[in-house]
């Protein structure tokens, strides 16, 4: 009995720390300039962040905590919380997770493998460049984890075909897997459908009365970042993991034979691509009117009625806990805006940074880029945008530009395994180590911040 109790305490120490910390904040006086509701909202955010980072409880429990605490310790009514919980962004996250399952199920990865190899040949640098570019471009439309799930088998098969002894091709393995992960990550900012965080930012712009940004407008602002980063990512990866083999002839030949066995493209595969093109067109032309989330749901509906995916597959492979969590974090994000907590935090951060930078724009950019980049590496990008978004949009200056900078910076999760789903996917193969993320990540981080600086100073003014 006592042993079990001690064990429970050791396992749930972060739950105990989070609740104790929350209770301590609750009983001390409200900080000056902040409303009581705003303060209580920030307490909920602080406790939820600890629970999300250290995971002492399942994610749906964190989502429920965020929701019921708003009703209990702030003046939000149950109906207000419920309506802020479900939004187009949540539908988009749900729809895109399901679309990913539907697309991956079609076995298009073999077609993809053949296409890439035909383009790149057997030279390692060309394969790395091909993996990075294809992952980036595809992920900008269908999301990074979908691309990582499709590209991983191609990369791992190539590695396995090249040598039976993985210890002889450690760097080759790393460069191929990182070209998939980092390629998918840099691409995910290109369009709103590249990642849930982009749609969360669109939702905030709309809910905060800043304006509606269309799919194409987003692309005009963000896509140059994708294009610019591709060649530098290849260079950085080559510099960090210069591979043992400059050509991988055997690996490529075996892969082509293996893929060729799968025969010609099936009718289902063609239909699946056609449906995704329809969804893409829907996002561009109807996204503003009916919402990107609802377009995604129409896509899922079409995949289901054409029998391309079973509901049981969608149900089994969709992480409902993530959907609940994003609904709850967006809800608390909106509460931060409504209660003035976001503005109070934004002003506090701005005043602090102004003592370091005398130019207020640098302070704003520092908060938007550095804070987002750091938090993304700890929390995951979507959760970061949900929490940091309302703060950044209250910093003053042009909220659209700072919103873009924040959404783009949330993809700078190169340093840790937990930053991006693509990073976690390659890590789960057991072929890359956590220190590899640091080795390549710091170079990627500097490169991406520099590119964002270039794009925001030279490209974005042309669009205004």
């Amino acid at each position, binding site marked *: 009995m*006592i042993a079990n109790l*001690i064990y429970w305490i050791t396992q749930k120490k972060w739950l105990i720390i989070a609740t104790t910390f929350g209770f301590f904040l609750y009983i001390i006086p409200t900080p000056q300039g902040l409303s009581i509701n705003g303060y209580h909202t920030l307490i909920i955010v602080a406790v939820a962040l600890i629970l*999300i980072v250290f995971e002492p409880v399942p*994610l749906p429990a964190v989502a429920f905590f965020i929701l019921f605490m708003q009703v209990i310790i702030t003046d939000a009514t149950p109906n207000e919380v419920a309506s802020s919980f479900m939004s187009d962004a949540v539908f988009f996250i749900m729809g895109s997770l399901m679309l990913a399952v539907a697309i*991956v199920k079609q076995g298009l990865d073999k077609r993809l493998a053949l296409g890439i190899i035909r383009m790149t040949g057997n030279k390692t640098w060309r394969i790395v460049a091909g993996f990075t570019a294809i992952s980036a471009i595809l992920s900008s439309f269908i999301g990074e*984890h979908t691309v990582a799930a499709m590209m991983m088998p191609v990369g791992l098969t190539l590695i396995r075909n090249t040598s039976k002894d993985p210890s002889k091709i450690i760097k080759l393995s790393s460069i191929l897997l990182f070209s998939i992960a980092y390629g998918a990550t840099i691409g995910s900012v290109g369009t709103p459908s590249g990642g849930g965080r982009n749609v969360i930012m669109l939702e905030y712009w709309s809910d905060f009365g800043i304006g509606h940004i269309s799919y194409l407008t987003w692309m005009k602002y963000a896509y140059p970042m994708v294009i610019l980063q591709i060649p530098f990512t290849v260079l950085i990866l080559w510099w960090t993991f210069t591979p043992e083999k400059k050509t991988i002839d055997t690996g490529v030949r075996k892969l082509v034979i293996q893929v060729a066995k799968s025969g010609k493209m099936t009718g289902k595969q063609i239909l699946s691509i056609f449906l995704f093109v329809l969804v893409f067109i829907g996002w561009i032309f109807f996204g503003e009117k009916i919402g990107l989330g609802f377009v995604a749901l129409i896509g899922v509906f079409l995949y289901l009625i054409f029998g391309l995916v079973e509901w049981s597959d969608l149900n089994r*492979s969709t*992480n409902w806990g993530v959907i609940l969590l994003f609904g709850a974090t967006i809800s608390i994000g909106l509460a931060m805006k409504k209660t003035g907590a976001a503005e109070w935090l934004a002003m506090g951060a701005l005043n602090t940074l102004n003592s370091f930078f005398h130019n207020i724009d640098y302070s704003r950019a520092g908060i938007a880029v550095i804070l987002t980049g750091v938090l993304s590496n700890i929390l995951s990008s979507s959760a970061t945008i949900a929490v940091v978004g309302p703060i950044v949009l209250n910093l003053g200056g042009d909220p659209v530009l700072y919103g873009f900078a924040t959404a783009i910076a949330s993809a700078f999760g190169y340093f840790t395994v937990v930053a991006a*789903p693509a990073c976690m996917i390659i890590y789960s*193969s057991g072929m890359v180590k956590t220190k590899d993320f640091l080795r390549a990540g710091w170079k990627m981080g500097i490169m991406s911040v520099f590119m964002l600086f270039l794009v925001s100073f030279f490209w974005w003014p042309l669009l205004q």
Partner: protein
Amino acid sequence: MVYSNVKFLLAIGSKEYSEPTLIVGSLIAKTFKADLSLVYVGEKPKQIFEGRIKLSRDSLAKWEIYHPGIEVLKWAFKYLQSSGYLETTDGNGFNPENIVEEHNRYRLVLQGSFGRDVDLILREGKIIDELRKECFEQEYTLTIIGGSKKRRMAHDLVQYLPTSIFVVQNLDPTKQYKLLLCVDDSKATKSAVRFGATIAKNQGMFVNTLTVSKTTQFGKGYRGAAKAAGRYLKSQKIPFEQHFITGDPVKTFLDFAGDDHIIMMGDSKQSPLIKFFFGSKPIKTLKKASCPILIVR
């Protein structure tokens, strides 16, 4: 002493580090005619990415690329076949696709008959947490695990696992080891003596029993326990010597054991709370030992 219906849990982590654990673990399981479960505990992805990792694994499985843990279990299964622990050389028993999800763990269903009960288990999460869940769900007698460099590992193993624990650290399978039976007045000493005697008898090991007192006086309980141990070893016709030494128990155990003994001791009779804050003889010995150690409950 006849042991019946015993189940051993053997934790493996990689081909590189788990070979000695597998060799010794399977030998001991054979000695006790125990059912053996091999468990691989892999890192669990962040909850936020779980669904996406699953999707990626489904995609990889179509290319016959499986979870890294399945590769380790396959290697362990093949070792058990080649070492003669399993009585068939049929290589088709292991099929990565025959994996079933049950009780938050994955079990590989082996095809065919192998003469012994072997389970191959894959779990994801923190090692102690997963071993503990496995032990409570399946009621094992002994958990066999390799040594770890993590400071808290020794403490957590002894504190939280409900089974006896055999930590196979720095073990050279080609070397002839002696058994060091640490004897005191704890309840578990009796079990340790019987457990040790069974191993020693089957593996032809020499036994040293060691009783350590902090003072020059050896209390009635200590003397009685040593006498009972000697009597039992004698009845089992196991060659042994008995030693009584004054000094710090943990240091004396470790000095005596050197690198040619397997230490065997009973678990402490102290309350879990005392053990948590101040440790116990087994915990301290395990933390400092550089040889294999078996703690019997």
